């Protein structure tokens, strides 16, 4: 019989194991990703990606939802605490912690009220002892309000397990965000997929420190390296100068620093392309204009015979020879 009651405790709360497990799953997945996907995901692809806030709440959402719409409807702190408490009960029942029978039934009834409302299910046969006892526990609570049921449930859990929520608030916070993330995936439906591997084309090129600094837009480091005697037009294995890298990644201030240090505006990489070719191909108009101002030549042909002037969008008037 004792075994039955323990089962009952598990049964009463097993539904809530959902949130708990998904939270755990998601945090594991996130941890997994952070451990493993770094291989392909580092460093952050762009400055915006690195600084992107995690909270996805779109501004438009706030504008479409006035707070009054959600009165009595949205998930409250009570909901959250109730979810946490019931998940805890489910977990402890699963791990074999014993709870008095009476409390188990009480928790079961409160859980049903909190999640489904008053009991409308038909009374099970008297022969089904367990089912009948559970049904009675639910039914006798009548039309108890949901909030009251949640509150009492939490109170009972506090009495049974005074330390149940000693897990730090940081941990709870983590579960909250995990829960919202889990909701985004959903139990069925389509999947949002994005590219697994980064663009590198089996690239074997080797960069010097100053190329890396230029790529990252680290202007202070560029200045330091130049001051330490690094040649401003030094090539990487693909023939690219620091200027090529700064232009490629769109770092205007790094381009300015290199221009000021008398970088060769018309240096060609191994494919015959100048930094201005890069600016045009990557559609970096402000940088292209800056390069032209520093006398970059728009009429140099690359190995395919294309000049930057020919490749550029027609509305870039500064690229025209008359400019």
């Amino acid at each position: 019989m004792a075994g039955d009651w323990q089962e009952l405790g598990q049964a009463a709360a097993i539904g809530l194991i959902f949130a708990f497990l998904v939270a755990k799953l998601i945090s594991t997945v996130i941890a997994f990703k952070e451990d493993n996907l770094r291989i392909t995901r580092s460093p952050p692809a762009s400055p915006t990606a690195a600084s992107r806030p995690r909270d996805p709440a779109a501004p438009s959402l706030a504008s479409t939802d006035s707070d009054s719409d959600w009165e009595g409807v949205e998930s409250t702190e009570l909901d959250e605490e109730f979810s946490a408490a019931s998940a805890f009960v489910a977990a402890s029942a699963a791990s074999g912690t014993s709870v008095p029978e009476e409390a188990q039934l009480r928790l079961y009834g409160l859980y049903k009220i909190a999640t489904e409302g008053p009991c409308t299910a038909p009374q099970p046969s008297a022969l089904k002892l367990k089912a009948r006892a559970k049904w009675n526990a639910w039914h006798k609570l009548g039309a108890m309000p949901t909030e009251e049921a949640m509150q009492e449930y939490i109170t009972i859990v506090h009495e049974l397990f005074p330390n149940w929520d000693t897990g730090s608030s940081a941990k709870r916070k983590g579960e909250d965000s995990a829960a919202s993330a889990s909701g985004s995936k959903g139990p069925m439906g389509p999947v949002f997929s994005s590219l697994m591997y980064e663009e590198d084309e089996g690239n074997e090129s080797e960069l010097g420190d100053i190329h890396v600094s230029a790529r990252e837009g680290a202007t202070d480091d560029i200045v330091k390296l130049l001051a330490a005697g690094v040649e401003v037009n030094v090539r990487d294995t693909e023939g690219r100068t620091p200027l090529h890298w700064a232009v490629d990644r769109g770092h205007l201030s790094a381009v300015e620093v290199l221009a000021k240090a008398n970088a060769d505006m018309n240096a060609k990489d191994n494919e015959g392309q100048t930094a201005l070719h890069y600016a045009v191909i990557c559609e970096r108009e402000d940088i292209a204009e800056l390069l032209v101002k520093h006398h970059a030549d728009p009429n140099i042909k690359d190995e395919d015979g294309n000049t930057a002037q020919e490749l550029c969008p027609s509305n870039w008037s500064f690229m025209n020879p008359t400019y």
Partner: protein
Amino acid sequence: MAAPNSNDAASASGPAPAGEEDTSIEALARRVQEHMTLASNPTARRHKFWETQPVGQFRDSTDTSLPDGAIEPPTPLSEVRADPYPLPAAFEWLTCDLDDDALLADLYSLLAHNYVEDDENMFRFNYSPAFLRWALKPPSFFRAWHIGVRAKESKKLVAFISGVPARIRARDDVVRMAEINFLCVHKKLRSKRLAPVLIREVTRRVHQENIWQAAYTAGVVLPTPITTCRYWHRSLNPKKLIDVGFSRLGPRMTMSRTVRLYKLPDAPLTPGFRRMELRDVAAVTRLLRAYLARFVVAPDFDEVDVEHWLLPQEDVVDSYLVESPETHEVTDFCSFYTLPSSVLNNANYSTLKAAYSYYNVSTKTPLQQLMNDALIVAKQKDYDVFNALDVMENESFLKELKFGPGDGQLHYYLYNYRIRNGIKPSELGLVLL
């Protein structure tokens, strides 16, 4: 996670006939947990909920005596529950009339703010209102299967699930099925556990139409996928994809070279390549029926279906074909649908415009060339990326046309229909939206 007695919990937990279904979501969570701990040992996995359901079971996967086909016979219609399942007190059911523009706007808004996101919450699907109408109102659709939940007080739409009817052939058997999709619960209500009751309710309403099978997809593994597909992505606008974080640039790779890598011609290359028109419906239907017959599981399209699903609609579905300049015979066909996503929290971009490969048939033009032209028109129309699953013969062109593998896997399921041993993605001829 042992998680015993979930059946016990279910049997006491709700209206008797569907009590077990109560735990579908919980079972799902447990399933996923088990999957993590027992990943390499399928026979050790347990699915308390799904083991009670008419779905293919892992334990049966080596039993060759089980026949393909319905797992359970239909129930008499009189035994299908007559009333909607109960909702929590603050909510009520709403059968959605998608001809009502205001309601369609509400549904659009619910999905645009609360539907599927990537794991890192950088993107969220943004199905357009016109797309939703197209997806949910195919020939002979059932309005009762457009199921909303709204808050009683504010009348605000807070959750949704849908089914649409389809004839799907599995081997030699054409079966009336429901395609289940667009299950969405408002973010503020995720702890209210509305999803299980939505699934039960749509199942009930499908049964009421004397339909006993369903097709659906999921990003998670349940018993038992008929197949598991992978998404592949072809960059059309690599700079934007990198800027928004859809794609990443290796530390030794230049943006300049990446842009050049994905550059496409300005116009399609195949002579006679043009947009499909109404007059092409019969020819396209013939091509498609002949082609889809090759696959183990595929829709059974007639001309009415083709007109709905494949006749181009701007920013919903695009279809192109090759009409022989000499004979004027339609020899090849390709199509894609438009599913943009919101870009969350990016200073420069708010939308990612994606084309999804739909149905493609090649008889004269090589498939790779046909799909290259599809890429070219998608690029012309300003799509940022072209996505394709590795279904049908897609694998034959993915790598060659510079598609890269995606991080998303999509599992296909049939409810109450067994396909022994499952099938390969290349044997699947069905694309769910």
